[in-house]
C-alpha cells in the first residue's frame, strides 16, 4: 500500500507541471485578448494529426540525445553547458567528412557517427582539461567554448568546407553526403517522414541507462554526484572521473545533429537547427536525468513546438509557447523537490517504525 502511495506522489510531478503550464499560458493568452480555449483546442486538433505525430518524434529525437548528453554530466554535478557548441562543430565536421569518403552503406553511417562523437568529445575535452589542470569551472569554459564553436563553424563552413559554388547557386553548405551515408525514413505518417535515427536514439538511451545504473563506471559517476568526498575516499579519482564524463557527454552531444543530417539535410547548411544543446539542458532537468524521463520530456517539448505552429496561422503569437515551456521547467523542478522531500521523510518514518519493531522483537527473543 505504501508503495502505490509513493508512486502516486511521483505522478504528481508531471501532472502538476502540465496543469500549471496550461493555467499560466491561459492567463497570458487572456491578458493579450486571445481565447485560451480556442488556442488550446486548435493546438490539440493540429497536434494530434498523423503528420504532427511524426514531426513531434522527429523534433524529439535530437532533444532526447541532447538531454542524455547533459544528464550524464548532471549525474555527477558536472554542468556541461557546452553541448550546444559540441554538437554544432561535430555536425559540421561529420557532414564534411561524410561527404569526402565513399564507403558501403552501414560503414558510411558508422563512420559519420564516429567522426561526430570524436569531434564532440574532443571539443568537450578542452573544458575537461581546463577544469582538471587549471581549476576553471566548466560552466564558464563551456559557455566560452560555445561562442568559439559558433565562430569556428561559420569560419570553417565559409572558407574551407563549403561546397564549390556551381553556377548561380548561392547556398552555403558542405557537399552532399552520398546516398550510402543517408538514412531513409522508417515509415511515413500522414505524408511526413518518420526518421529512422529514432531507432539508434532508443539504443543510445538504453545504453546510457545501462551505463549509469548497471556498471561500475556508472556507480562511480553517481557516487561522485551524491557525495564527492565519500567517492574519493572509496577510490574514485575525481580528475579522471571529470575527464571521462566530459568526454562521454561530448561524444553523445556529437550525435545530436545526426537525425537531421542522415534523414533530411544530408549536408551541413545554415538551416541546420541550432539551440538544441540549450534545450537539452531543460529536457534533462524536466526528465530528472533519467533516460525515460528525458524521452518523455523531449516528446512533450517536441509536441508543444509542433502544435504551436498552428497558433501563427490563427494570428496568436506563438511565443506564448515559450512561456508554457518555461512554466513546465519550473513546475517540474519545484514539484520534484517537494515530492522528493515528502517521499524521503515518509521513508525515514517507515524505517524508524520498522527498526523499533525489530528491536522490540529482539528484546522479546532475548527475554
Amino acid at each position, binding site marked *: 500500500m505504501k508503495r502505490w502511495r509513493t508512486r502516486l506522489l511521483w505522478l504528481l510531478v508531471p501532472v502538476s507541471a502540465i496543469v500549471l503550464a496550461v493555467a499560466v499560458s491561459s492567463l497570458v493568452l487572456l491578458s493579450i485578448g486571445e481565447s485560451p480555449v480556442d488556442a488550446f483546442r486548435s493546438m490539440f486538433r493540429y497536434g494530434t494529426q498523423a503528420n504532427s505525430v511524426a514531426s513531434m518524434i522527429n523534433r524529439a529525437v535530437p532533444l532526447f540525445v541532447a538531454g542524455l548528453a547533459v544528464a550524464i554530466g548532471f549525474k555527477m554535478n558536472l554542468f556541461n553547458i557546452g553541448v550546444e557548441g559540441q554538437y554544432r562543430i561535430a555536425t559540421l565536421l561529420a557532414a564534411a567528412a561524410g561527404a569526402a569518403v565513399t564507403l558501403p552503406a552501414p560503414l558510411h553511417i558508422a563512420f559519420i557517427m564516429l567522426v561526430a562523437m570524436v569531434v564532440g568529445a574532443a571539443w568537450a575535452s578542452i573544458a575537461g582539461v581546463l577544469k582538471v589542470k587549471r581549476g576553471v569551472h566548466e560552466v564558464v569554459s563551456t559557455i566560452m567554448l560555445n561562442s568559439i564553436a559558433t565562430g569556428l563553424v561559420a569560419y570553417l563552413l565559409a572558407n574551407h568546407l563549403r561546397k564549390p559554388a556551381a553556377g548561380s547557386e548561392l547556398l552555403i553548405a558542405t557537399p552532399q553526403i552520398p546516398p550510402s551515408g543517408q538514412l531513409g525514413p522508417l515509415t511515413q505518417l500522414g505524408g511526413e517522414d518518420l526518421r529512422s535515427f529514432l531507432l539508434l536514439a532508443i539504443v543510445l538511451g538504453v545504453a546510457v541507462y545501462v551505463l549509469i545504473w548497471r556498471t561500475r563506471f556508472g556507480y562511480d559517476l553517481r557516487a561522485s554526484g*551524491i557525495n564527492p568526498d565519500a567517492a574519493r575516499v*572509496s*577510490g574514485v579519482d575525481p580528475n579522471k572521473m571529470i575527464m571521462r564524463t566530459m568526454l562521454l557527454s561530448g561524444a553523445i552531444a556529437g550525435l545530436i545533429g545526426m537525425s537531421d543530417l542522415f534523414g533530411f539535410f544530408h549536408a551541413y547548411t545554415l538551416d541546420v537547427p541550432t539551440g538544441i544543446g540549450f534545450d537539452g539542458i531543460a529536457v534533462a532537468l524536466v526528465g530528472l536525468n533519467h533516460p525515460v524521463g528525458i524521452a518523455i520530456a523531449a516528446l512533450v517539448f517536441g509536441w508543444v513546438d509542433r502544435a504551436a505552429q498552428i497558433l501563427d496561422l490563427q494570428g496568436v503569437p506563438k511565443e506564448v509557447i515559450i512561456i508554457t515551456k518555461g512554466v513546465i521547467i519550473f513546475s517540474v523542478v519545484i514539484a520534484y523537490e517537494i515530492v522528493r522531500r515528502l517521499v*524521503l521523510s515518509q*521513508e525515514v518514518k517507515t524505517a524508524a517504525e520498522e*527498526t523499533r519493531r*525489530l528491536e522490540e522483537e529482539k528484546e522479546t527473543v532475548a527475554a
Partner: protein
Amino acid sequence: MAERAPAVELKGITKTFPGVVANDDVNLAVQPSEIHAVVGENGAGKSTLMKILYGMLRPDSGTILMDGHEVHFRSPKDAIAAGIGMVHQHFMLATNFTVLENVVLGSEPAHAGALDFGRARARIRELSESHGVPLDPDRLTEDLAVGERQRVEIVKVLFRGARILILDEPTAVLVPQEVVELFGQLRELKEQGVTIIFISHKLDEVLEIADSITVIRGGHTVKTVKPEDVTARQLAELMVGSDLPIPETRESTVTEEVLLSVQGLGVRVGERWALEDATFDIHHGEVVGIAGVEGNGQRELIEALIGLRKPDTGTVVLAGTDMTEWSTRRRRENGLGYIPEDRQGRGLLLPSPLWENTMLGHQTLYPFARGPWINKKGARQQTEHLIHEYGVMTPGPDTSALALSGGNQQKLIVGREMTAAPKVLIAAQPTRGIDVGAQAAVWELIREARALGLALLLISADLEELIGLSDTLYVILRGRLVAEVDPAAVTPEELGSYMTGATKAGAA
C-alpha cells in the same frame, strides 16, 4: 571588579541538536577587559556556545546578559551591533582584495553614495596603531603571512566597533613566533579596554595569556579557575574528566609480522608542516592508537595513508610492498580499510540504498562487481548478511542510508570494512556521536578484528577508547608523534597532559 557587572554573562544556556545535547546548562561570566579562556576537548560544546553568543545559533533555554542587561541575538548582525566580534579559526578573507578592502567588506563606509576609502584608511591606521596591531591597509591580502591575515580579521572586527572579541582557536594556524606576537597584541587590546574570549585547547598557551579560564566538558561548564591557581596537569584533568575508564587486560595478539610500516611521513600545508616525520609500524594483530587533540595532524596522517594526499616526505609500506605512489583505489583493493571520522561526509551516500553503501570503497571487488558490471544481486546479499552479522537495525538493503540512526550507520560502515577482509584498517573516531550500545558493539568489533590478525590504526579523541583498545599508543601534537606511552599503565589524565603539551615526552 566584583562591583561591575560582567561584560558578558551566559546563564543556563542549553542547546540540543537532534539526538545530541551540545550545551547543557552552561554558565559563563566574562569580566570587562579581561582575557577569558574557554577550554575543552573537541566536541565539548565550545563552538556551539560561541555560536550562540555570536547569534549564529539560538539557545533552547538560558539567557545572555551584556553589562547586566538581557540581550537577544537573532543573527550575527545583532551581535555585531551589540559590540561582539568573532575572529574565526578559518579566515574569511578575499585574498585578491587589499587589507583595506577586506576590512570594510560588509560595512563599507559610504559618503554620498560613493565608497569613502580615505576615511576608512585613516580609521584603520588609527585602530592598528592605538591597539598595537601593525597593519598596512594597502597591501594585497594574498601577500600576507598567516599571522598578518589574522590581524586583518582582528582589525576588521574592531572596525565594526566590537568591544568584545571572540577568538576561535586563534593559535591553531600560527607558528610559535606568530603566537608570541599575537599574545602581545591581545595584551595591548586588553589595555585598551577590549574584552577577549579566547577559545582553545592548548593548555600551555591558555595558562600564559588568560586572566580566567572556564573549562567545558561534555556540554557542561565544569569550573572557572584563575591560571595562577592551577597547573597544566590539573587543567587537563578538568578537561578530560576524572572518571577513569577500565583499561582492559587481555592476551596480546601482536605478532612479529609488520603489516603497515610508516617511515618519516611528512605533509606540508602551505608553509606549515601539518605532519612531520611520522614513523611507526603496525603488526599483524596489533592495535596502534593515536591520541591527540583534533587538528594536530591526524587528518593529514589519515589522508596520506589512504592516498588522498601526496606526502611530501616518507614512505608507506603495506605488507612488504611500498604503496606510497599508489592511488586510493589500488590501496583499497590491496587490503586497506578505512572507517572515516566523518561518517556522513566521507563514508556514506546518504540518499542511496544500503546495498549501494555497502559497495562503497569495494565497488571494484567481489561480490559487488563482475568485470565492468555492478552485481546488484551480490551486493544485496552481502548487505543482508551484513545487516544480520553486525546487528544493523533496518528494514532491509533497499532502505536509504539516510533512514538509519547514527549508530546503525556506523555499524554498517564498520561491517562493510571488516567483511572486505582488509589487512590494515584505519579507524578514525569510530565511536564519535553514537549511542552507548552501538559504541560497545563497535569496540567489540575492533577487538574481533584484532583477534583475526588485522593491523589496526585507531585515531580517536576518546581516551577511554584508546587506552582500552590499543596495544601501542602514540601521542600526536602539532603534527609530530611526541610520545609513546604504555596503554596498560597510562591514566587518561597523563594522556591528556601529553596531548595538550602540558607534559613533554620523557618527563613521565
